[in-house]
């Protein structure tokens, strides 16, 4: 069982993964932000490198910030990025 989710990456997370966005089939047993990161890191070296420093990764689900311990619910879009530096 899985659902198809749009993943978007920004800044050096994007550069290390090597794509701007992609659609992935996320297994149903991946429920929290932290579990999403662990699962992604299993997809390949580029993901492992990009997401290695968990402290430096921020996430948004359906365009809202979540904490790693939050469940991702009915995620249609998951974004991963470094700490924001706007303003």
């Amino acid at each position: 069982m899985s659902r198809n989710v749009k993943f978007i990456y920004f800044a050096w997370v994007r550069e290390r993964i090597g794509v701007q966005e992609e659609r992935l089939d996320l297994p149903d047993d991946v429920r929290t932000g932290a579990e999403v990161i662990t699962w992604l890191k299993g997809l390949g070296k580029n993901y492992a490198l990009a997401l290695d420093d968990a402290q430096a990764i921020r996430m948004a689900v359906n365009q809202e910030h979540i904490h790693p311990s939050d469940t991702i619910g009915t995620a249609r879009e998951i974004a991963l990025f470094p700490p924001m530096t706007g303003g």
Partner: protein
Amino acid sequence: MRATPDIRVQPEPFDAARECAAISAASNGIGALVTFTGLCRNEGGRLAALELQHYAGMAEAQMRRIADEACDRWPLDALAVIHRHGLIRPGEGIVLVIAAAAHRRAAFEAADFMMDYLKTSAPFWKREHLADGTLGGWVAANEADDDATARWQGAADR
């Protein structure tokens, strides 16, 4: 009546004077107008430009969430927030916040609050383009920004 924030994310430069004039013209009850402009520094000549990457859609939504919260917290007559993306040269504006209120405390605090939250929770990322023509690194987040944001999260909040 609660103010409705004016939120814009755009590649084009903004004109702070024009935005202020529009806000002032809309009400003669405004006693205090605080404007914050964040400018691209040249970093002592090292920098050719800053590239601002953003998460389209979420950037606007997140700016609106923060601005709505500011309008709930302070009695504002107007609140405008414009954030640019794309390539920005030294001396050019990156972000503009204008807060208007009857009295200065509300205007100062709302603008200050807006900027603290924009810095730490609006999805924008800065990359340096160097004067020697090479591409520099992504700007690291500033711990002081997190500390500044934490100022607004007292026990009495929410």
